[in-house]
């Protein structure tokens, strides 16, 4: 064992800058997630196919439905696209805690917990980068498919808006999921929560129908549902001229503009992050 020079090189042994340390650990953790994905691409393939199936099936299901309940007289397929994009990103982020839970159950997480990480939020940031990348790939696939189905394509600013909205949503939901992965006793419980939360949040949002079409109580739910705040700006990006200043959600408690949606979504996401942070750090800081 060559330990003879260990003391003399101690100055070059460790990365000194705290920011570089942080970047180094996030980079390494993210790389691990992508290596897993590259070597097990089936999850990516399924992740891209599934929303396409949703889009085609749901679009076909409502193709002949009267369209006068949709705002601006757009076709159902065009209306649905934004809902599918957001729902796909949401599901992906909601599942982000599962790999972490398995790491916990298999003891791999302990390797990270005994390491001198600058912050355990690095685990969260790497998951957000990973999920966001996959969501962008999925969204591109959905947008491409929507285009081929004749549902249109957002302009450049609209496209940026889609990415930004998704990123905000993913940050909040990934935080929530990782928090649950730390707090719940095991993967069975985590899957149960994901199962219970996932579809109801879809149905209680404006992904499939506008608020005006819902009974009053469901309208209330939809207008406090963060998915709605993500769906509506993206939908607006799909409807010609993009104006975030205009009212996008006619909530029972008042009208919400595009900016209002993004603001509420941001507040909810950052709020979630701060709520789960103590869970990440629960095992000593």
């Amino acid at each position, binding site marked *: 064992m060559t330990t003879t020079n260990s003391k003399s*090189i101690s100055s*070059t042994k460790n990365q000194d800058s705290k920011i570089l340390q942080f970047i180094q650990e996030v980079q390494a953790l993210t790389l691990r997630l992508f290596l897993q994905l590259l070597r097990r691409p089936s999850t990516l393939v399924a992740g891209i196919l599934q929303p396409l199936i949703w889009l085609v099936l749901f679009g076909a299901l409502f193709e002949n439905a009267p369209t006068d309940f949709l705002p601006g007289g757009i076709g159902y397929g065009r209306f649905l696209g934004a809902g599918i994009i957001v729902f796909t990103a949401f599901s992906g982020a909601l599942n982000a805690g599962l790999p972490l839970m398995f790491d916990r159950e298999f003891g791999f997480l302990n390797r990270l917990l005994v390491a001198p990480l600058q912050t355990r939020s690095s685990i969260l940031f790497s998951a957000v980068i990973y999920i966001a990348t996959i969501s962008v790939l999925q969204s591109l696939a959905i947008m491409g498919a929507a285009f081929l189905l004749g549902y249109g394509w957002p302009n450049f600013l609209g496209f940026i808006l889609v990415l930004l909205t998704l990123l905000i949503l993913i940050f909040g939901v990934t935080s929530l999921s990782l928090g649950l992965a730390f707090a719940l006793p095991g993967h069975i419980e985590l899957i149960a929560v994901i199962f219970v939360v996932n579809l109801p949040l879809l149905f209680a949002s404006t992904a499939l129908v506008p608020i005006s079409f819902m009974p009053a109580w469901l309208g209330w739910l939809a207008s406090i549902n963060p998915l709605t705040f993500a769906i509506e700006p993206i939908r607006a990006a799909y409807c010609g001229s993009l104006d975030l200043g205009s009212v996008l959600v006619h909530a029972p408690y008042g009208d919400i503009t595009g900016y209002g949606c993004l603001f509420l979504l941001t507040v909810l996401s950052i709020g979630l992050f701060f709520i789960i942070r103590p869970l990440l750090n629960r095992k000593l800081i």
Partner: protein
Amino acid sequence: MPLVELRDLEKSYGAVKALRKLTLEIPQGSLFGLLGPNGSGKSTTLRILCTLLEPDSGEVTFAGQNVLLNSREVRRNIGYVAQEIAIDKILTGRELLQLHGDMYHLQRKYRDGRIKELIALLDMSEWIDRRSGSYSGGMRRRLDLATGLLHEPELLVLDEPTVGLDIESRSKIWSLLKTLRKEGKTILLSSHYLEEIDELSDKMAIIDSGRVIAQGSPEELKNKLGDNKVTLKVREFSTKSEGEKVKDLIKDLNGVHDLVINYSQGCSLNFFVDDSESLKLLRSKLDVEGIDIFSLSESRPSLDDVYLHATGQTLMDAELEVASKRDLKKEAKEAMK
């Protein structure tokens, strides 16, 4: 100053008390062995030291620093090799080492140099670039050791490093630990294998039900019992009552001390004698009572005797007893919290 000091540690998992006022000092440069049956609190002790668990009460210091208050600094200086072999099967061994190096913020050049050294040291070059899911238990263990050593910690902590390993892997790990010991590394090793502790450690402590019941060097502990250990059998397998009857007969004999019944070895009597005079007395006493001697052997005491005399049962009996009481699933759940 000792490198590690554990003082009055207490830890409970629900109603189960894992540690009861455990106190221990680990001197710099020693290979310190923690011996105890499964469930005696070894892993809990190590997990607390490595900042994975918080004790309910008590103090832990590492190089004079409070571990609970300076956990990040302490983590940087400890290499922890856990009992459960946790690897990401889809990564190669080299990728796992690189990930580890980055978690410890090693400079890339230094990190890759260390990985090279360790691959050579632990003889891993043939398979290090294969996915770790295909590794055998011994290979995984070696990789685990490499991760523990990668950042050249001041203290290497090994929780049962050779459990379930084949003989070849075991002897490889032993010889590595001996090399490290020669280099003056401080190593804390837990094991329920007597011979492992005996062979490797220069200081040791015996843990039983969350307490330290004896400590010193293996030699000291054995010598404390005296030179002449005697194992007496009046039959190949005596009953409990027969064993107790013989015990009563000889317990007050002059020069006989530390007398216990070894229930796991056919209720034989284990004790120490001052000199051969005592044995003569014993023979004539048994003769008078009409009891034949099946075998009477003298030997140097082993660590098992140390354990037997400290706790009243052999390590193996203690293992079996604990194994029957233990709820491993529940413990795993608790440990995850």
